[in-house]
């Protein structure tokens, strides 16, 4: 049910804007606190695990 909701065109568009803004706002805060590079390192490690594990979904 969540999947059907999340894949609607309007929800996709809403998420696109919200996520972009959230990324910008969190980064602005992290830059202010001088923690941006460490946060990006943690983000890249998480993204690597996501992309790697995604292979389970690849035929």
């Amino acid at each position, binding site marked *: 049910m969540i999947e059907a909701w999340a*894949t609607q065109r309007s929800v996709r568009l809403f998420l*696109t804007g919200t996520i972009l803004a959230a990324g*910008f706002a969190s980064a602005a805060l992290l830059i202010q606190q001088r923690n941006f590079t460490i946060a*990006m*390192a943690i983000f890249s490690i998480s993204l690597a695990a*996501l*992309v*790697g594990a995604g292979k389970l979904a*690849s035929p």
Partner: protein
Amino acid sequence: MKLVFYIAAYVLPAAIVWGILGVVFRLLNTIPWLIPLTALAYTLWFGLLETLGLPFRPLEIGWQVPSRWIDGRPAMVQALTWGTTLGPGLVTRNPYAGIWLLPLLIALNQSLLIAMIVGIIVGIAHGGGRVLGVLSNRRSMDMDEEYAHLQILGAQFRWQYIDGLALLVAAGALAAYTLSLLGVHF
């Protein structure tokens, strides 16, 4: 023991390859603006395509492990071959655009040593994730081949959506970072 060797066959080559990539891309980051702007354009473009579910051709190397490298070889050699090629995730099929963002993000680290360490951890995370995916795939293939194939395709679409959202978070963050490099104070 066999399982540990199988996991290590994926994780170790990935750690080495990504550690080297970390150093190489960190050296490229000496060119002002190159990495942040490339990463921003990349994340925005592919993040929008994946999140909005628009058709696109992923930047991937379509190379596959030749069957002669596998057929008739001992199980240990097979595991090593699969692990070395699939673990780092660079030379085989990968439908997720997030993979090519990783070298650019690693390059943003402050020193060569930190970039190398983050690269190694990224490699471990990728190789570890990949081996778990392969092991999980094998289990679902044991069920019904046609059903498993459909399930895998459905999961790929969901995964691509999540990858797109992750790319958009990065796009927003990189936009803020680029502005800070231009002298904008937050």
